[in-house]
């Protein structure tokens, strides 16, 4: 286990490039940064976050389930009000739209927590602090 600390983003990126160019796989490198350094994603050539599947799933489920729910309620006790059709699609779309966002937002948050394994009790009690430094932790398990 090797650890490098940097005060500035530029030095940090330079060193990270050097390590990656030397042939170390990104799985063996952890970086800790005070904010999102987008260059790290480019250097590691990571794929876009899998979070999008959670978001899509949540949003789609929200729309479909809420629409089905409303159709169920009007079929459960069919009562015509205001001369409108039982399944009033334009009116139902509004509630379905809100539920799309509601479910999409909640499932995205849960997906984020799941992907990052948060909340992490171990780290709540004893966090690895990087202060405002940029850290590269190089796990020597696989490497040069």
């Amino acid at each position, binding site marked *: 286990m090797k650890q490098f600390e940097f005060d500035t983003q530029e030095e940090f990126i330079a060193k990270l490039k050097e390590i990656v160019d030397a042939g170390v796989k990104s799985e063996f490198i952890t970086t800790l940064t005070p904010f999102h350094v987008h260059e790290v994603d480019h250097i590691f050539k990571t794929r876009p976050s899998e979070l999008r599947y959670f978001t899509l799933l949540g949003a789609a489920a929200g729309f479909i389930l809420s629409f089905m729910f409303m159709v169920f309620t009007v079929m459960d006790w069919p009562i015509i009000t205001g001369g409108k059709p039982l399944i009033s699609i334009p009116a139902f779309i509004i509630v379905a739209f809100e539920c799309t966002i509601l479910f999409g*937002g909640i499932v995205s948050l849960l997906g*984020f927590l799941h992907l990052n394994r948060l909340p992490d009790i171990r780290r709540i009690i004893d966090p690895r602090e990087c202060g405002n430094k940029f850290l590269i932790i190089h796990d020597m398990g696989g490497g040069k």
Partner: protein
Amino acid sequence: MEKRKNVTGEEGMKTQAFYGQVELDVIRAMKRPGVFYWIALGASILAFGGGMTLWGYQVLKGMGVAGITHPVGWGVYITNFVFWVGIAHSGTLISAVLFLFRARFRSAFNRIAEAMTVIAVMTAGLFPLIHLGRVWRFYYLLPYPNQRMLWVNFRSPLIWDVFAVSTYLTVSVIFFYVGMVPDFAAARRHFTGIRRRIYSILSLGWEGTTDQWRHYSRLYMFLAAFATPLVVSVHSVVSWDFAMSIVPGWHSTIFAPYFVAGAIFSGTAMVITLTIPMRKVLKLEKYITVDHYEKIAGVLLVTALIVSFSYIVEILMAAYSGNIFEKTVFYYRMTGDYKYFFWLMMFCNVVMPLTLFNRKLRRNIKYLFVFSLFVNIGMWLERFIIIVTSLGREYIPYSWGTYTPSLIEIGITVGSFGMFFTFFLIFSKVLPMLSISEIKEQGVGNETI
């Protein structure tokens, strides 16, 4: 928008000292409140408590203590509901919409605006309950089958409102909290004892690893992308509470965009009202600069022009329609019992914003503060006029009437401001007021650092 270089940070100044300074400045604002703070908090709690007591009185005595009666069944309570939902809106606009447009000046305001959103939606959510005669039956609004297995009516705008407002509250809270997670991780270092423990738990064990940031950025973007159509839809739904009925002056297709623009207008003004004293008291002047105010005054100007245009369209439509009821209502608004309110509203929302074309005034903090107070008053009056004059002059002259708010209603309105400021003041000492990680990433105006 034009670019001026000192709004965005320069790469060269992003050093350790800078990062540390940002943290210290923001965290310092969370410590040791001064005398002014305690006075403000005391006054707010007093108003809040007074309003709650009056509500208790109304619950005990019945709705007769409020001024709302036939024909004006919606009065100050619904005005306040629309007003507070409107205030909430610019919070989402500033944090989510400007995030999607990569407008960097948002980092000065976004946390405060998000807090304002959450608190204003809570305040707004209280008003339909206060408006209910029997508040303990509020659960009738929720979609469940009643004793006779009859469901709620999903064609009713009031049910849309329940979904819209509760979704808005939930998503705003998530957005607000997610934005703060890295800042809690920074805050835990600066405190000891119980506060350190609370911030540690709230930070969820955040460390800022590669993967955490990667998922985090995506999450934040998705939430912003959800929040943006949500802002538009929520106030559209609120406007449909009016527009779906056939009351003259309400039944209009223009209502949704008109309300959304008005909401952003009033909310942006509220952001200015809140941040100007706050940046002074908490010494955050170098993070919330005059340049930022100039930009946000631009947002105010654009939305004011949309609102003015809507007023003109509304009046012209009434005049040109040949519909006697529509014409009567607008004539009544301009010359009837509430004409002073109408013209004051016109002055606040149409005439005064034109001064913002002057760049000197856009950059004058004192002027902006006074201006934002006028806008708050003007936008409150707008909702009052829309509600009261239309209901007071419906189709049959036999059922015409006027409405005067009772002292109870006025007291509860003052109480709602007390509630808003109480929560806001507590927020300003408990949570980081500026997005620390975002400012570290972007830097601040270089004229002050």
